[in-house]
């Protein structure tokens, strides 16, 4: 079964184009310098419409997660993580932690992780995270 995929809107297209190009793009306010996610064409901290897109470092820490033992059909048959990571730049995002066993022993809160992009269609690559290389 095909993976459930996002449908970009005009306000989020830069983010998904970035993922396709292998770049995690965040936004920040030109006035108050607040970095934020998910994308929107104004600053959620101060309401200013002048915002800029910039490439994030891709570094993050594991903030919280579950290991879903009843996977959705498009997610395969094995238990998998559904995680929230705290990006080095501040914002948090939902993702999957890949490239390691999907167990509490391998998935330790606050461990460093880094972004990796996986292509699922011509348009969409999802930003997933993997344990950071030492």
């Amino acid at each position: 079964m095909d993976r459930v995929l996002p449908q970009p809107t005009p306000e989020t297209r830069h983010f998904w184009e970035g993922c396709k190009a292998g770049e995690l793009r965040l936004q920040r306010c030109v006035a108050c310098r607040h970095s934020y996610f998910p994308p929107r064409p104004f600053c959620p901290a101060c309401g200013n419409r002048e915002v800029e897109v910039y490439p994030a470092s891709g570094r993050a820490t594991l903030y919280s997660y579950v290991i879903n033992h009843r996977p959705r059909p498009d997610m395969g048959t094995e238990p998998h993580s559904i995680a929230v990571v705290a990006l080095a730049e501040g914002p948090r995002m939902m993702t999957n932690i890949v490239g390691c066993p999907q167990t509490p022993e391998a998935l330790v809160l606050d461990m460093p992780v880094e972004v990796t992009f996986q292509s699922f269609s011509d348009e969409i690559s999802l930003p997933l995270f993997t344990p950071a290389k030492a």
Partner: protein
Amino acid sequence: MKQKSVAVVGAAETTKMGRIPDMSVLGLHADAALNALADCGLKPSDIDGVATAGESPVQLAQYLGITPTWADGTSVGGCSFMLHVRHAAAAINEGLCKTVLITHGESGRSRIGAGRFGGAPSSQNGQFEAPYGPVGPPSMFTIPVLRFMKDVGVSIEELAMVAVIQREWAALNPRATFKDPITIDDVLNSTMIAYPFRLLMCCLVTDGGGALVLTSAERAKDFPQKPVYILGTGESVETPMVSQMEDFTSSKAFRVSGKKAFDEAGISHADVDHLMIYDAFAHLPLYGLEDLGFCGRGEAAKFIWERNTAPPSAGKKGGKLPLNTNGGGLSYMHSGMYGMYALQESVRQMRGIAPAQVPGAKISVSHGVGGMFGASGTVIFTNEA
């Protein structure tokens, strides 16, 4: 709002509860509505205000034959009915209508005439959460809990104890779906759903409904049932995406809604005789007790562990703050939007007719959550005019 200016005069749940394959969602709304109207001796034509969630108030009005001068379709998840009570009280006080019917019905288990869960792939949830595999609340609402357990210091046994004590309450309620006692081991050995959540830490999935009828305190005296007055209310919303909540160890919507309700009611926590905290999952009463201010940060798990919220049971003493006395979403019933059942239990406690009645209870707090920590509503009731 003005304290005690509006009262609940009619309250009822659906005739049946649990598995109701012979009724659609709309049918469950109507069954609950007719029961609540019978409870207060009114006919649909006596109603001039309607509020509901899930279904549209337009569906409800036409189906029941009501011509309202006020309608509220606020639909922010399971606490929508707390918000309806708040909005209805304001509308009655403002003279927009006189007698409000609030309904809930959901075919959570049988899925008769039920809609689909989830948003469009272009929504924020569709773009920034759905691609990573969440399958509804069990693998979404649960995501913050590992962070909560680490930061405030809660053990898995303490989380399991929430379910154990609510089962003790359910044992006292003949209408509860699950009544057999369970132990911490039973909870920790039940099927893994979404680590660290096991089956018995998750709510039931049932069919059912409930309805309330509200009117001014002045008129309330003329109705057959003991009026249950609204003392204070609160509401707030935070985020449609659990991943974007400000703090995984505390709900901003809970804090804002709870404070507003307590301020309006002009009471302190010590004045509260009975408490309902929407428990879709075992961690919610922990967040609720702390965010409403009944417990300090990191104290809620211990508070429950030490039986402060428990009924007298098997020779053990009951606690000073009876919580989720119907058995809660974990053991009583949960059709999807449980807030209505929390309100129903508060009303029963204030009328003095609950199966597990708290003796002499005068003030009851009913606190609900909507979505995955997305919204919140709080209603404080009293039976003293």
